[in-house]
């Protein structure tokens, strides 16, 4: 495991995590090792379905430009995930891409 010597300043302005469920790590990756240490969540009743805004982490008070930037970040992220070999990840990505389009149409109008 490494610590970065030269790119610390870049990483300080890191991007916000998505509100959507994160894809699982690939088996054998460092990320996988990290995740294995995480506590397992207790069984809970299924949560009520989230709205497109909730999925995209958009709140009512967000300025338009912030919404636009968040949608761009999420699109870049989930467009990539949409071609994953993992069917579960592809399905999650499709849900997110649909939500991203819906939020865009609601806040910025249809194409």
């Amino acid at each position, binding site marked *: *495991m490494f610590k*970065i010597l030269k*790119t610390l300043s870049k990483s300080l302005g*890191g991007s916000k*995590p998505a509100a959507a469920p994160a*894809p699982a790590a690939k088996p054998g990756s460092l990320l996988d090792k990290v995740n294995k240490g995480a506590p397992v969540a207790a069984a809970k009743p299924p949560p009520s379905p989230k709205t497109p805004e909730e999925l995209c982490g958009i709140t009512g008070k967000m300025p338009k430009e912030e919404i636009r930037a968040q949608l*761009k970040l999420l699109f870049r992220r989930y467009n990539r995930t949409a*071609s994953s070999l993992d069917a579960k990840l592809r399905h999650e990505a499709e849900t997110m891409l649909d939500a991203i389009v819906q939020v865009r149409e609601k806040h910025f109008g*249809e194409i």
Partner: protein
Amino acid sequence: MAEYVGIDLGTTLSGLAYLKPDGNPEIVPNADGERLTPSVVFFDSHEDVKLVGSAARDGGEPDRTIFQIKRHMDDPEHLIEIDGKKWTPAEISALILSKLKRDCSKICGDITEVVITVPANFNELARKSTIAAAEMAGMKVKRLVNEPTAAAVYYAHSQGVKGRILVYDLGGGTLDTTILDVEGESIRILTSEGARHLGGSNFDDLLLEAYADQYRKQTGAVLYSDERHRRRVLQATEDAKKMLSKLQRVNDTVANDQNSGIARIDLTRDGFEKLVRNMLTRTVFLVEQALDSAKLKPSDIDHVVLVGGSTRIPKVKSILEKMFGKTPKSCGNVDECVALGAALFAKKSARIQEVCNASYGTLAMVYNAKTKEEKLMNSIVIPKNSVIPCSKTQVYQTSEDNERVIEVDITQGEDEDAKFVDVIGRITLDVPPNRPKGCEVAVTFSYDENQRVRALVVDKQSGRSKEVAVTYKGAGVLSDEELKRRSQHLRAMRIE
């Protein structure tokens, strides 16, 4: 012998072009007299023959017919079993390439070396599989070139334009957007963005659902219950989609194969546009992503060029016109320009500067001096859009005392969040014992013209190093030996 040959190995259609002595490219028809060959393979059960093209698409049994194999070129586990033999996506693609090579060489001369086009966002494995397919078909791949780059080369050649061009390539299976600068014979790619599984066949699937809904409402029955009939209806939806690019309204009738009655399907262009609006909005996101990557505004683009059969949809043109404030131009025949550009690229590649299509890096724990927290992040070594070929190095430190093994994960992707990048390989390097943490390790990534990556890890204190090309494991990934064996087998096959 044809010296400069380009092949567009498409999701739905493939084509081959060569450069004529006058310097202009020309499409070479196949032995069936078609300029483009459907990328479909049929394995006949009666004769030992593989049909490729229209004959394979229009007849045969669904269980023995392979469509859109290109969508699986990046899947190391994807295998198709026919008569007990397992075929990899590269082998199926090799059958399509063999048909093109055999048919076209009768017209343009022997074909030994080719440029093959791939979607801009094709990953490592898909590129490697494409090269393997060509080798099995008996052709050496001079270069792989991104499809929108090839189209832009053809556009610049045929139209004599200069300036900044945005290519919007919406094909049967993928969308690519590339921005490039053209100055005379020199072309400089600025960025490429792509969306896999976003193309005309997705629109056909949506229309198919609409047909099935209409049928259920009118007859109370299901429209199709087997693959054979689903394929027939899918062909009807594709025809209807094409007609809606010319007409405002299309009427069709469909029936299932259970005698449940006939349903009348009434389609309007407006209704079709609503159906595919979600997909088209995604394409807008991708265009914006390309502009952001190149740090450009729509007004910085001089020409918007349309490539791919799905750009015939009028709404595509109107969306881009609204976005850029100028009418998009079609790249001649939108189905043929990629192959034509590939043939030009075969001769002009030295004057075309390309960029890295993805970022490559490694996973690293990053210490935040402000919060004093450590976080696992994707640390990029080669950023996307670096001019290729290129080689870049970053130095990292070991984090624990007496670390005996250094493991470096190779990542592909731009996201800083490690959860949203692909880990495409790993280098493991043994280092001497009893060393304190903080030993420096240099990680170097090199990227070649075919968009393939190599990684080198050097432990600076001990001088130990290891270099690897990214390799893949899986039932569908052939070893060099297996590739050679299957190539020989394939060359003896009857392919029509």
